[in-house]
């Protein structure tokens, strides 16, 4: 009996020691952080998702986690096509993609100053009009009607449009117009982009890049305003 008790005590002691060891960071191991795990993202998106000098790679920081997660899922399945992203994500599990999305959503590096625009005042004025009022005659809703009055987006699935360069926004709107970027049905952005002309795209993209950051760039909570029409990315 005594021997058995001793053995049991020894086993418990071993377990406790093992637990203790597991809690300590192991020597010569990478930091157990998300920052270290997403280093594969940073050459293109910046250390905190702030973006880089390459205008085609978007800022990720501060966007709603639900939006970022949807994009990661779309890249993983190949629905959204960009081979370097498709390749990196192909064999990563859902909870990990969620954690990556949360990581970049919770980072808030400063927004870049508005970029000087290369387009004329008239083009900027058209962009401003479409973004803030839309064009009811052509079935074009205003950007602000979904992306929020401050264009900061809404939780959980509508992205803010802050800190994106004109080239990126224009490439995405173009991809939606031609159906190479798609989202869950009803694909609201595809519908909107289908009503835009190339000139509209240039104007809106240029104007968005000049928009200064509001005091609070955080996306507004879910339900702050009603969307003008159904959107698969933001189920009610």
């Amino acid at each position, binding site marked *: 009996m005594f021997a058995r008790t001793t053995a049991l005590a020894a086993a418990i002691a071993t377990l406790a020691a093992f637990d203790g060891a597991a809690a300590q960071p192991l020597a010569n*191991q990478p930091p157990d952080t998300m920052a270290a795990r997403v280093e*594969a993202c940073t050459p293109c998106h910046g250390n905190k998702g702030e973006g880089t000098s390459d205008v085609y790679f978007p800022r990720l920081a501060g966007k709603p986690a639900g939006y970022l997660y949807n994009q990661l899922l779309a890249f993983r399945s190949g*629905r959204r096509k960009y081979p*370097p992203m498709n390749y990196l994500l192909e*064999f*990563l599990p859902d909870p*990990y993609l969620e954690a990556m999305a949360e990581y970049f959503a919770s980072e808030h590096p400063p927004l870049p100053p508005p970029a000087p625009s290369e387009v004329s005042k008239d083009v900027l004025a058209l962009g401003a009009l479409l973004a803030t009022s839309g064009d009811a005659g052509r079935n074009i809703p205003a950007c602000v009607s979904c992306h929020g009055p401050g264009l900061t987006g809404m939780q959980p699935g509508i992205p803010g449009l802050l800190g994106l360069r004109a080239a990126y926004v224009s490439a995405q709107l173009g991809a939606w117009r031609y159906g190479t970027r798609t989202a869950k049905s009803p694909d609201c952005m595809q519908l909107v982009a289908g009503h835009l002309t190339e000139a509209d795209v240039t104007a809106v993209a240029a104007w968005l890049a000049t928009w200064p950051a509001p005091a609070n760039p955080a996306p507004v909570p879910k339900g702050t305003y009603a969307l003008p029409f159904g959107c698969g990315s933001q189920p009610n």
Partner: protein
Amino acid sequence: MGSKLSITLLAIAALTTAAQAQDKATDIIARGEYLARAGDCTACHTAPEGHLFAGGRAMPTPFGTLYTSNITPDPDTGIGKWSANDFYKTMHSGRFPDGGLIYPAMPFASYTKVTRADSDAIFAYLRSIAPVNQKNKPHELRFPYDNRQLILGWRTLYFREGEFKPDPSKSAEWNRGAYLVEGLGHCGMCHSPINALGGTAQSDAFKGGLIPMQNWYAPSLTSNREAGLGDWSIKDITDLLQTGVSMRGVVYGPMAEVVHNSLQYLSDEDTKAMAVYLKGIAEPSPPPPASSTLPTSESSLLISLGKTVYDKSCASCHGMQGEGKPPHWPPLANNQSIEMQSAVNPIRMVLNGGYPPGTKGNPMPYGMPPFAGLLSDNEVAAVVSYIRTAWGNRGTPVSAREANELRSAPLN
């Protein structure tokens, strides 16, 4: 009264038998699901965002594009009307139930080794999943490969029908590993060199080769110079197969898919059996001839530039001496996948980076950044030349042209 009791007893007996039969059927289905994973059926028969096993996945080959078939139990578009015999015939002989020839992209040259009992279990599992009504897409093969009769020629050259025969001189564990590696695992589909006809000579089994269309090099499983595992511990091999990472190196490229969809689900016993077999088939190899097509002056320049690039961009993870922080940040010193004759994989890792697969044993893997946008062809060639020759590594330098050519390699 007496007869009533016996009827009741009979009824209970019948119920018990029915329940036992039910349990047995459930066991067979569960076993079939396990075996279907061992065979990685989903990798080909499930399209991205598609229904499980409904097929329709495009498979680019040097001969054109094949579309995989619907193997759900739908009676019209799947295998709903098949019998277990039909299924076994397909697995074993590479022929459809009506005798039609199957393109050898389906690994029947490996699956022919699968036992009848295992084939029946996989069939029982496939019969148990949800039927999906989805017509098979016709293949898009170029002339003359669109002529199925050509498969007869291929079969004569490269196909030997026959179940796995255990080697009585080896242990049961070794034989189980051999059965899994050579049969359902169909490892030879990538790890054996494929000739211009898409075939593999038996004598070349597991000798390694470039995977057509994907531009990744599947290393030899027999040569310790490549992925031969002769001097690996069993634990390092099983770690690599089950979790995707190990103290000796991590999986990447097409092998990440295999670990993700298939190997991570295998039992500890089966993984260990595979490790024992893989370690067993490795042959000690002489040191490689130090041959490089580059002039010595060019390689010395590359290697000195390579050290600068390495120290700046790689050493923070892989260590000043290439020691890494294994298992997550793999060592580059004495890492077989760096030193192989083919430099395709190290060049592609520098260009494209990559994550090992997320697995039960390693759900949040660390990834390597892609350097394609950060480094010039010269810098890529330089850093790969450096890691292939530094710290006692015995690889050969690579040229900027080789680095440049792989920039356009398909990524998935």
